[in-house]
């Protein structure tokens, strides 16, 4: 449900959505006027200390691609993709601005808005109209800013000067305008919104004709670090899959790493969207501390390879090299340190934590680890799977770091609601939660039944998955493999459906019988599935 913001409203992003991979859309229009919509990545002093974080039509993304300009789509004049957990620590604020290109003033604009969309669903919208402005020629629409956690503020503050005044305000410098080169090279296509699965652009109500050419009509200015590829590219169709896009990967001349939009192959941090958990507020995802892989450029053949002994970009020394992996403390009880490591601060909140045995990798302070009688849970699970699920109780004063086999960890904060988690996928949970074991029985399930733990109450459950999971809404036709399903909202009903002999001959030696779980429930329920069948 989208929240409507007024000028001056602020909220934590984590209260708006659990996702950190956000789509920011801006609509602003006035008859006969054109607008430049840009995003300034500012440091703690609200200065544009790094030109590469001025995201505008001539520089459509930041170096590690945490901020990308996507172009017009879905009814938005301009849109951005912002991946909060990949923004470097130096950037403390993102300011989204609109400036008039040419004559005119802001009072002429019609109704417009800035909105945030996560997981295909609009979560917040700040609407404005021209009547709020007078003679301004630039307006700061909204800010993402880091104050302990990322927050969003609806600003709506006008500036009398245009883009130059705005740039000066942020301490930037205006590059001299140059006459456009004769053959304006087409940009490499900005990363299409459709590419990453977890990042849902809002459904486009109409084909956005202007999408593919966010920059074509404009003269490329001397952008600081964006090397325009030499090969002219036709503007891509919006639905063009990324693989089919002509990756400009073989330029003729060596050039700074341009923009080969390599599909992120190394599992870059992609905060999964547990978006539909009712009443849920996941602790903010701390920066995962991963450096984005450097862009894969090309090495022209035949270039002699010297051995530069230069200092890396991050600086010399042990501390500099390890800086990206530093512990992050946010003052919350549960803090993800990176995709695979969870830190729980036992000094916050009274009760202890129950964790899977052996999942502690490190702790600081005075923490006791005790045997937790598995009781019915352990025995029931153990009988079926042949391996008892054993828990340990962590109590005391200090911080415990939990991880297991490099699995991805996801904290799910329950606020009075319930969730069923497959017993194998539980890593840890607050002792304050009530839990019970449920059996899902069915012919053909390995071990005779699937054991799940139902958690209810207020607290956090940490779920582990192999790989990046998918969160599906429960529809009348939602099925999941019982080996791959991780969790589902407690209100949905599970039915075992055997699709008998559907593909009898598909696999020789296989009975052809597949057991699936079917889920039924009211809208708002969801299931979580991992890309790994245990």
């Amino acid at each position, binding site marked *: 449900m989208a929240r409507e913001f007024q000028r001056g409203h602020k909220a934590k992003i984590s209260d708006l959505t659990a996702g950190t991979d956000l789509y920011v859309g801006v609509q602003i229009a006035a008859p006969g006027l054109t607008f430049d919509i840009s995003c300034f990545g500012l440091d703690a002093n609200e200065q544009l200390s790094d030109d590469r974080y001025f995201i505008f039509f001539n520089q459509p993304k930041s170096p590690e691609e945490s901020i990308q300009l996507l172009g017009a789509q879905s009814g938005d004049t301009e849109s951005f993709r912002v991946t909060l957990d990949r923004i470097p620590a130096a950037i403390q604020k993102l300011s989204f601005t609109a400036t008039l290109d040419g004559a005119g003033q802001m009072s002429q604009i019609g109704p417009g808005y800035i909105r945030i969309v996560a997981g295909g669903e609009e979560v917040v919208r700040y609407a404005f109209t021209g009547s709020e402005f007078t003679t301004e020629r630039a307006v700061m629409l909204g800010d993402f800013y880091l104050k302990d956690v990322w927050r969003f503020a609806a600003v709506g503050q006008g500036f009398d000067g245009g883009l130059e005044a705005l740039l000066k305000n942020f301490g930037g410098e205006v590059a001299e305008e140059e006459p456009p080169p004769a053959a304006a090279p087409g940009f490499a296509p900005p990363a299409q919104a459709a590419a990453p699965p977890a990042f849902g652009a809002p459904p486009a109500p109409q084909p956005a004709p202007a999408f593919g050419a966010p920059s074509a009509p404009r003269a490329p200015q001397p952008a600081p670090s964006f090397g325009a590829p030499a090969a002219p590219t036709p503007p891509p169709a919006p639905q063009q899959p990324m693989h089919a896009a002509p990756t400009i990967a*073989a330029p003729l001349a060596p050039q700074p790493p341009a923009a080969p939009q390599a*599909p992120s192959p*190394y599992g870059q941090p992609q905060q999964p969207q547990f978006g539909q958990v009712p009443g849920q507020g996941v602790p903010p995802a701390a920066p995962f501390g991963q450096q984005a892989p450097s862009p894969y450029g090309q090495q022209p053949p035949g270039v002699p390879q010297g051995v530069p002994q230069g200092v890396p970009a991050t600086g010399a020394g042990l501390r500099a090299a390890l800086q990206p992996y530093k512990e992050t403390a946010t003052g919350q009880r549960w803090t993800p340190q*990176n995709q695979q490591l969870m830190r729980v601060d036992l000094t916050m909140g009274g009760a202890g934590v129950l964790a899977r045995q*052996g999942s502690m*990798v490190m702790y600081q302070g005075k923490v006791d680890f005790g045997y937790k009688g598995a009781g019915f849970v352990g025995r029931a699970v153990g009988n079926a799977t042949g391996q008892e699920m054993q828990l340990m109780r962590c109590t005391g004063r200090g911080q415990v770091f939990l*991880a297991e086999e490099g699995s991805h960890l996801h904290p799910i904060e329950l606020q009075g609601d319930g969730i069923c988690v497959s017993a194998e996928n539980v890593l840890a949970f607050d002792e304050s939660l009530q839990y019970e074991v449920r059996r899902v029985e069915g012919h053909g399930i390995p071990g005779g039944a699937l054991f799940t733990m139902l958690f209810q109450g207020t607290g956090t459950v940490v779920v582990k998955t192999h790989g990046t999971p998918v969160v599906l809404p429960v529809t009348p036709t939602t099925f999941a493999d019982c080996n791959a399903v991780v969790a589902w909202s407690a209100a949905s009903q599970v039915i075992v459906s055997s699709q008998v002999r559907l593909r009898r001959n598909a696999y020789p030696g296989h009975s052809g019988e597949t057991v699936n779980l079917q889920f039924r429930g009211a809208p708002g329920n969801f299931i979580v599935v991992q890309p790994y069948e245990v």
Partner: protein
Amino acid sequence: MNQQLAGFAPTPVTARMENHGRTMLKVAMASGQDLYARTGSMVAYEGFIQYEPNPPAARQIASQWITGEGAPVMKCSGDGLLYLADYGADVVVINLDNDSISVNGTNLLAFDAHLTWGVEKVKGLAKFAGQGLWNVVVQGTGWVAITSRGTPIVVDCGRGEDETYVDPDALVAWSPNLKVKGKRSFKAGSLIGRGSGEAYQMAFSGQGIVVVQPSEDSTDRLRIRN
């Protein structure tokens, strides 16, 4: 076909050691600048590079490394580009600037040959982790690459008077100036198979850092084959 794969071509060399993706290390080799790498970690090379397994110099330094079979390092020399990896573990490149770091033997991938290094056995802990816990102390000014199963985390040890306790299987590296001791945290219950599962830890105290991986898999995959 080439278009999609071209994105994975190597970037121009800018430093002696660089990450190619998260899990591969690219080393720019030149004659006179030798490298020690884990035996079996080479996945590709380009140019003229020679490998000398169990070099005499290393044999002497690491004479006791794991049951005396010899150090699992090879000396690489020559000109070209060398690619190293350890079964998909994350690679972290460190440019030592007159620093020193103590790395768990299985987590060390490569280091410059001109660095000072030595093998140590952590006293009193060898019996804790299955095969014995060996670590390599590297110091000087140069490049070191370490591996981690999953994205590692770095914790400042010198925070407050509390010690930092680490599961030995998850430990990757630490500052050599830290005080290390073993800690047995099991209670009577664990003797009859009811332990918390966390029976042994290493306790660190002092000023320095500890690097930990999010996995308790300390299997030395590069050694399995021999």
